[in-house]
Structure formats: C-alpha cells, structure tokens
C-alpha cells in the first residue's frame, strides 16, 4: 500500500459543513474520481483515510490535509489531483498530492500547529476593535510574560496560559481598513487552543467584548514539528510523481 497526502481548501458556503460530513464527502468524491483507494478488510470495508486536525464549522481553509492509502505502487499524483478536482465542488479545491515516505507519521498524529488569518465580518466590524486598537493590543501582548485565558465549557472551567501555545502573532501588513490578525498556534491533539481564545484574550486587555459570530477565520496551513523543532508544513512532506 502506498500512502499519499492530499492538501485541499474549504471555502464559501461549504464552511458550514461539519468535519464528519467532510470525511463522508471525500469518501464519495474518491469513488467518483475513480481513485484506486485501499480498503480495510471485513464485512463492511472502509477506505484507508486519515484527516489532520478537524476544522470547526464556519471556518474556511487553504490548508486541510487528508492521507489516503492506495493500492497502486506508483501512483500518478497529477492525475489523482486532476481527477479529485473534477469530482469536487468548486468550494473544495485540491492544491497538492504527494506520495509520503514509508516512515511518515499520519496527518492526524503528526499535526502540531496551525496558522490562521482572522478578521471581522463586515456586519460586525463597527462593534469590533479597529486596526489601531488591534495594533496596540498586540504590542501590549508581546510584552506580557504570560497570557492567562479563562476557558469555560459546559462542564469545566480552567485557566490556560495561551503564551506557551502561540508560536507567532502579528497584524497583517495590508491596505485594508479592517485589521487581520495572523497567528500560528498549537493544534496538536493533546494541547490545542482555538484562534478565538487568542482574539478574546487580546480584546479583554482593554475590556472589549467581541460580539457573537464576529470572527472570520481562515486556516492557512498545518504544520508538524521536525526533530530540530522547526515547523514544517504537512504539505511539504513527501514527493510528487
């Protein structure tokens, strides 16, 4: 069995599709594309398929990953990419297909961090901080030793020091009126935080309460950590044919 890694986007209306349904979508897209995918044994065989960190409902992405097992020993990665794109809806585009080395960890296990771009929905932006405020907040933040965020879920509440999970955090340098915050944060299965936590924390420094559903979030890419500790894009692993 050969393993390939598929990088894909998720944009527009399709961002309201949940992670499990994206998986179901690909199970069918792979069949429509006629890809020679490997199946597990048993009475109801399923495709050998692994996804990297799930993307929340409402978020968009340029850097989603899916690993697939193939029956072919020497798959044609360009042909697979074309076939998958043809079988896909316009909101999901396949950006790359690579053959993984045998010792590569799977997409789910190896994901360590994600990069995001965050801005505000147009209909909410007047209630959100402007570009100068965001700039000031980010500067304040960079001087802090720790960033204690109080996380509350239905059952539990606990304090997290966001600082140890943030690998980069800055204001995007563009000509837009609206601020766009760029961040790379931990999204490993054990220690992940959400980009919304960071935005809430930032705003809390000046007692700004963000309105509900105001954040427009795009995941740019996902990374694994190399032996030397560097972040390597999941899409840079493996080779094309």
């Amino acid at each position: 069995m050969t393993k390939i890694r598929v990088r894909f986007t998720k944009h527009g209306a399709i961002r309201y599709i949940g992670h499990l349904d994206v998986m179901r979508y690909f199970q069918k897209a792979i069949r429509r594309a006629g890809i020679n995918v490997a199946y597990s044994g048993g009475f109801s065989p399923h495709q050998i398929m692994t996804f990297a960190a799930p993307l929340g409902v409402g978020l968009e992405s340029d850097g989603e990953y899916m690993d697939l097992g193939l029956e072919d020993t020497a798959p044609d990665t360009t042909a697979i990419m074309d076939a998958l794109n043809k079988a896909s809806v316009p909101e999901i585009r396949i950006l790359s297909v690579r053959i993984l080395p045998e010792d590569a960890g799977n997409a789910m296990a190896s994901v360590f961090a994600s990069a995001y771009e965050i801005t505000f929905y147009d209909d909410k932006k007047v209630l959100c901080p402007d570009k100068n405020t965001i700039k000031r907040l980010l500067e304040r933040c960079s001087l802090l030793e720790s960033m204690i965020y109080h996380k509350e879920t239905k059952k539990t509440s606990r304090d997290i020091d966001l600082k140890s999970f943030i690998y980069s955090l800055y204001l995007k340098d563009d000509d837009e009126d609206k601020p766009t915050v760029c961040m790379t944060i931990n999204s490993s299965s054990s220690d992940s935080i959400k980009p919304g936590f960071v935005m809430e924390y930032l705003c809390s420094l000046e007692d700004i309460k963000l309105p509900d559903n105001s954040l427009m979030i795009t995941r740019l890419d996902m990374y694994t950590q190399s032996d030397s500790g560097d972040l390597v894009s999941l899409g840079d692993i493996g080779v094309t044919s």
Partner: protein
Amino acid sequence: MNRDGLFLSNDILMSVEKPERYIGHEVNSCIKDPEDIRVRFVMCFPDVYEIGMSHLGIQILYDMFNSFPDVWCERVYSPWVDLDRIMREKNIPLFSLESQRPVREADFLGITIQYEMCYTNILQILDLSHIPLTATERTWDDPIVIGGGPCSYNPEPIAEFFDIFYIGEGETRYRELLDLYEESRDAGISREEFLYKVSQIPGLYVPSLYDVQYNDDLTIKSFTPVREGVPAKIKKEVVKDLDDTYYPKSPVVPYIRCVQDRVVLEIMRGCIRGCRFCQAGELYRPVRERSVDRLLETVYQMLDSTGYEEVSLSSLSSSDYTHLPELLDKLIVECEKRKVNITLPSLRIDAFSLDVMNKVEDIKKTSVTFAPEAGSQRLRDVINKGLTEEDILSGSAQAIKGGWTKFKFYFMLGHPFETDEDIEGIGDLANKVAAEFFELVPRDQRKNGPISITVSTSFFVPKPFTAFQWAPQCTQDEFIRKAYVCRGGISSQLNQKRIHYNWHDADTSVIEALLARGDRKVADVIKRVYEKGGIYDAWSDYYSHARWIEALDECGLSLDFYAYRERSESEIFPWDFIDIGVSKRFLYNEYTKAKQGIITQNCRAKCNGCGAAVFDAGICPHAAI
C-alpha cells in the same frame, strides 16, 4: 444575501442546528442561469431536509424538470423548529436551496404529500414563504401551488390550500402544464382563466372549480364542477413503460447523513398482492417492472456520479419482481468489485432471499424481518395477506439454520373483524419461532447467542381506495385495550423472555384517520392546529393530541364521524371523483369477502378484474380491457 451567496446570515447559520440543511451547494445540485430559463419550479417535501432528501419521487421529478432547458427546478424543505422560530421573529421569507432566493418569486411551488401528518408543515411552508394559505386569495404575485403524491388521492382536507393537484405519476403531464403556463403568461390571461385551462389537462385537479353539497347527516350529497367543461372525474396518470421514462442518473448527494444515504433503484411500481388495508397496493396498479438491462445501466451510472457506497432496491414487494434472481446475480458480482453494499428491504423470507442476504449482509449484524400484519391465519385471510403460518415458520426455520438470531415481526392491531383470539395469535406465532430455535440449535452451537424476537404493532388506519375504506376505526381506548391483549398473549408464552414487544401510540393513528378520509370541512381543523402552533406533527416530540382535539371541538367536527364510523355502501366519499382504475365496486366486493374471510388471488395468479386494466400497462391482460 451574505457574501457566499447564501440567503441566511452567518449569525443565523451559526446559531441553528445543522446549518447544512439550508446552504444547498450539494454535488449534482442543478444551477442554471436565470436569464436562460422561463419557469422556476420549486419542489418541496414538507418535512426536515434529511427526510425530504431521501425521497425518490422528488429526485425523479427534479431530474425531469431540469432536463427541460426552459425550466429550473429547485428544492425546499421545512426549516427545523429552531430556524422556523428565527424566521418568524425576523420576518425572513422561506427560500429555495439552489438559487437561495425567496420561494415566493418562483412560478410554481410543488409540494409532495407523502403522509397525512405533514399537513401542518404544508401550512408552515406557505406561511413562511409569505404565500396566502387559501388558494383563492392568491394573485399572479404568488407561485402556482401544486400538490402530488399518495395523499393527493384524497386531497379534500387540504384542497383549499392548493391551486392544483396532480393525480397520479408525475412523469406524464408536467410538460403540458408548463407549456400552458408559458402561453398563458405571454397572453396575459388571469390566474383564474389559467386554472380553468389547467383543469382540461388529464390528471390535473383544480379544487376551486368544484362545489360540494352535504346531507343533513354530514355526508356528501353532491360533488360537481362549477363551470362548463370541467371534468366531473379525474383519472390518475400512469407511466405505461417504465423503461422509457425519466430516472435520475445523477441524484443530488447531500452532505449530511440522510435517512436514505444510498443509491435508490426502483425496480418496479405497484404490487400484485392486494392486501385489503394497503393503499399503495391499489393506487399504483397495474404492476409494472423495469428491465434488468436498464436497471443495471442506470445503477452503475448513479454509482459513478454520486460515489455512494450502498444501493437499495426499492419496490412494494421486491420478491415479486420476476427478474430478481438475474438482477441480483449481476449486481452482486459488480458491487463486490466496486465495494458497494446492497440492501434489500421488503423481501419475503424464503430460501432464495436468505441465500441472497447471506451473500450481501453480515448475519451477526442483521435481522430477519416478517410482516404478517395479523396474528392468526383467519385474520390474515380477512386482510388478504397472502402469507401463511407455514410460510413464516419454514422461512424462520431456514433463517435459524442459516445462523440468524435476530427476528423482527410487524403486526397491525385493529383490523376490521378482528377478535381477541386473533390478537393472542401474535404471541403464539412469536413463541413458535422461538421454539423452533431451541429445537433446531443445540445448546453448544448457539454461538451467536440465543434468539431474540421483536414484535412491533401499529394501529390500523383505514385509507381511501382500499377495501377497508368503509370500515370503522377503533377508538383510542379500544386500541390501547388491544395492545394489552397482545402483551398478555406474549407474556403467557413459554419463551416470552425471548420476545420483546413494543407498540406505536394511538393518538396519531386516529388523527391520521381523520385526515386520510376527511372532507373539505377538515381544512379548518388543520388551519386551527397550525394557528395554535402545530408543526412537525409527524414527530412525536412536537405532536400535541390536545391541540387536535381542541381544534376539532372548535370546528364542531368529531372523530366519531370521520374515524370511528362505518360507511354505508352507497355513501359518496370525498375522493370518489378520482378514478384510479380500480373500481369502487371491486373494492366493496373485497370488503364483503373480507367479512367472510375469503381470500383473493394475487394479480399474477389470476386477474380479478379490479379495473386497473384500463391503463393497458404492465401485468394487466389485454383481454380484460
């Protein structure tokens, strides 16, 4: 419209359960340029998306309409209760999934009516679309509202909400209707004049063109057209050759898991059996089969275009499809290659079907299902269920020998002429199957565990166009008493620990009977229930029996009249103006034979002259015309 071309804002989509229900954009959904089309047809299933998307009829018509270059067919389903509330609060109109535009802007709103308990959802759809509920209050600014599907065979309780009903199979007359619509709009004629012209098209019923008079005892005195040239009878439409018609080669593939998450292949239409309680068995006569070659060609195209991992063969009684062995032989080989599962609902349990099930299913996970519908042979003869105790016990014995341990039995309580002994026969039959297991499988060979039998009963609802359309329905109290008799019959059995019993509730069954055999006066009840907040009545969580009883009282109508009363032979039924081919005389004869416990042979064994031969199609012998 938000930045993604969606009708609902991000705020709303993020605050409702399963926003995927409202965004469209599915694989194979049809997008057309509004500039290129003349008619926008919005097709509706008045229930939640996951139910509506599973319906084959809409898939067939969606495919047909979109094959017309001048027509764009879109879909809409009932917004779930959470979105319903938001739409009312914010006065947001209902929109179709493809164009994400208001339904009210469409030329037609077609509503498929599959079960009576969705009637309040029809009002929800109209109301949220900002279309007047009453057809006569509509103008050209509103779409033409047209109904179809099994419940349109007695459209009277919902007649005032519809401009047109399509009686019969949708493949045949829509093109004529659309052409007439385009001509009429070009000519600038009134909506009333257009509807009058519609009434001239066979199979199309325009309720506003008929007048109903009642007798003092509330039964119908007369049902007459109010205008010259409007037909007094409407004959159902039938597709004569199922190989030469529309079938969706590329059905829409939903993102969310729907009830029917697979390719559905309709192998035949109609049923040869003639069970006396069964409406579908009469409505869809004559039996017509699709050819194996066309079915295989179709199913492979559908699998290629959708990527589904499962295919389900659909019909009222798949074992009666004459080419089933040939079809399955070929399908099993190809599906194994493609790693596609096959599911076979409505199979009669015998050596052949068990062999097939063994090939396509995991015995440990699946169960063997019987639907004897009645517990005793006497009552099975009354209802003309051509299934003998010997058939059941030999089927179950073979299944037991084959390794199956899970068995399901479906029965109905409250059949006409039922006695308590018939009901007690249910426990008896289940016990015999359990006894077979302990006899046939020695203790040391019970590797799949002991046998487990589930007995489910529902309550009988008399339906139009059946032999039992004259029959009284049991009252709720009587239904409950019967369920206790059934439970008692089971718990007195030796193997009662292996038999699990559950029954359907009686509340909805009597309301279903009211709606199934109701007349035009029942429309007020439905409207009042809706005004009191009733929607999703088919969902037990949202059904309120009190609301229906209250509305009945307010309208001065009663279940005694609509549900519990036996009709006389000469009574005019609200649905008598519809001609399904099968004659009222034939059905009354069936009712008489039921009383006497005399069976009627199936259509393949012998033609019984029901009248469906007028369609000159399928199984019907030409000589019988």
